């Protein structure tokens, strides 16, 4: 390894390091993954459900998908927020703390935006549109 006056990876327990990193990436990429799953499943059910005669429980299925997606996005937001708070009080070397706070902040914002998007795309249409208005 290089001996440099640059912050280096050694001197820290790699497992907790990798765990924190995994949580940080979950905070940022969890919400979009939940939204993508909700979009594809809802659209598939909506299109298939309607064309195959529109069974009545379809709106129930769509609501369940949306609630699950919201839960995941909110969980990711909570994880990111926790990391953000813990990073503020951490005494690690400043470069790493800056990066951890940056990723945690991105996690919070990402989950905020996707919670709105999932709710807007998942719940609001049901209130207004009967599920299977024929094309």
């Amino acid at each position, binding site marked *: 390894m290089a001996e440099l006056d640059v912050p280096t990876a050694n001197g820290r327990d790699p497992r907790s390091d990798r765990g924190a990193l995994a949580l940080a990436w979950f905070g940022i990429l969890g919400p979009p993954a939940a*939204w993508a799953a909700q979009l594809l499943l*809802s659209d598939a059910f909506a*299109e298939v459900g309607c064309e195959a005669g529109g069974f009545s429980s379809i709106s129930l299925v769509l609501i369940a998908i949306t609630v699950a997606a919201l839960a995941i996005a909110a969980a990711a937001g909570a994880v990111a927020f926790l990391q953000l708070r813990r990073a503020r009080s951490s005494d690690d070397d400043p470069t790493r703390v800056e990066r951890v706070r940056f*990723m945690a902040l*991105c996690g919070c914002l990402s989950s905020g935006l996707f919670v709105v998007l999932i709710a807007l795309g998942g719940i609001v249409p049901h209130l207004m549109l009967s599920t*299977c208005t024929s*094309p």
Partner: protein
Amino acid sequence: MATATEARLEEIWAEEPGPVSWFTTGDHKRIGSRYIVTALVFFFLGGLEAALMRWQLAQPGATHLTPEQYDELFSMHGTTMIFLFITPLFTGLANYLVPLMIGTRDMAFPRLNAFSYWIFLASGIFLYAGFVVGAAPNGGWFAYPPLTGPIFDPGINMDIWSLGLIFLSISTTAGAINLIVTILKLRAPGMTLARMPLYVWAMFVTAWMMVLAMPPLTYANVLLQLDRNLGTHFFDSTAGGDPLLWQHLFWLFGHPDVYIIFLPAVGIISTVIPTFARRPIVGYPYVALATVLTGIIAFGVWVHHMFATGLPPLGLTFFAAASMIITIPSGVQIFAWLATIIRGRKPVVTTPFLFAIGFIVVFVIGGVTGVMFASVPFDQGVTDSYFIVAHFHYVLFGGAVFPMFAGLHYWFPKITGRMYNETLGRWSFWLIFVGFNLTFFPMHVMGLLGMPRRIYTYPPDLGVGGLNLLSSVGAAITFAGAVIVSINAIVSLRTGAQASANPWGAATLEWATTSPPPHYGFASIPVVHGRDPLWEQPELASDLTLTDGREILGTTVTDAEPEEALAMPEGSVLPLLTALGFGGVFVSLLLGSVPAAVLAGLMTLAFIGAWTWRLGGVPA
């Protein structure tokens, strides 16, 4: 001590003299400039096609062009501008700048970089071969079957188009992978994810989108080729297929593609504005995250291109919601630029800054009309009318070509070592700005007056004759502006003032090298302690000189901590030969001769074998 190291590095990183190195170089600077120049040639061709179209549409009932010619022109205008001009140009600019901005000496895979360029050049020629044989692609840039299917377009036109795009996707995917690995593994020590320049963030997200967006297009084109030449029924509704399958696959690529065009432009603007506002960007984390979120949401909006195809309304609302929310990250970026200008010093008004301001004005108009299409009923009213043509020129010409002009002027001193002429620059800006608005603003009105897209002529009673004339005049002015930009470039290449290392007093690392930078880039790999190295650390030299052969520094992904020095390969002609091999395969497929395709394929495999012979094993 520095000059000895520099001499040593110059000798290590030198290339064979003379024209041979033209075909064997792996230097990201030479390949980047080549990409830019070739893309600008295609920009000129695309502009010519646009000029001919505007000439035909200037008055009602004109017969300057036959319908066949007009269809070929607008199809190639769209395909050229999107696939052969703007994406390769931004790829070339990234090839040139990203290694310098992250403080390393070359891309992660120099030979793959050369290979990407040769494939791009070959596929551009392949696509334009259509005009030579009088059968250029004529199905529009999104080529909906069954119109482009075997029954209604039996000629070779659409085979050229779809094979050409499969051919080009090799270059785009290889270039994107190269860029991602470079950004992940070769950042200077200390450049954590929180300190990456915003241009590098933009290219990083763009490259990921390229890797994920190209496969749906390639698969759609494979299906189209099979339908056209082997009698399969993917898009044939009489035998279980569905024409909408093509639209789903194409637009799953199509909308991310327009963001692949837009995000590099956002990266350029986020670099130009802070430099001339004399302060760091306001809200760096918000802008960086906005780039990432735009790239992600872009994959979930494609059905807004299909609102009028009779899909069930509930399904459309999911995509309408995503199409609305995607405007929030763009809004964040616009307000970040505005805040940077307001909170900064008195702005230094140069041509790049003028183009950046012109971009903000024009892109906001394009953006607000874009939001309207997320409202399903409105979109069903105006889709496929000239209102859409006006919108996407505001967000593509305004949203990407304006930043391109800003970027080219901004980095012209760094790439060529010469300053451009400021007065010519201003003239070209105002001509392009006025000409652009004169050309495309009336198109909003034409759309509302009920003028459909892609009509080679229109009757006088539609009431759009005057507007079309205005638009054609505007096109001429814009063309004049672009000509002045090229004059400015050619003149300044020879007689421009000598450029210093950092003429704009900018903050990013590429301005730490001389103009133009030497082959080895940095004498010593810089160590970064913040987001604006040149403003925060006057002295960048470190002791990481890496002079035991052609070496660059591999670092960890999130915090860029040094891992080990990586040996870089010498220049080689194999990438060019492999690209020619692929060219042979695609030309044989186009001409429908399987034996020739197999032969060319075997030749390509041989070149790949030679290329990878020494990779990842005991050094030679």
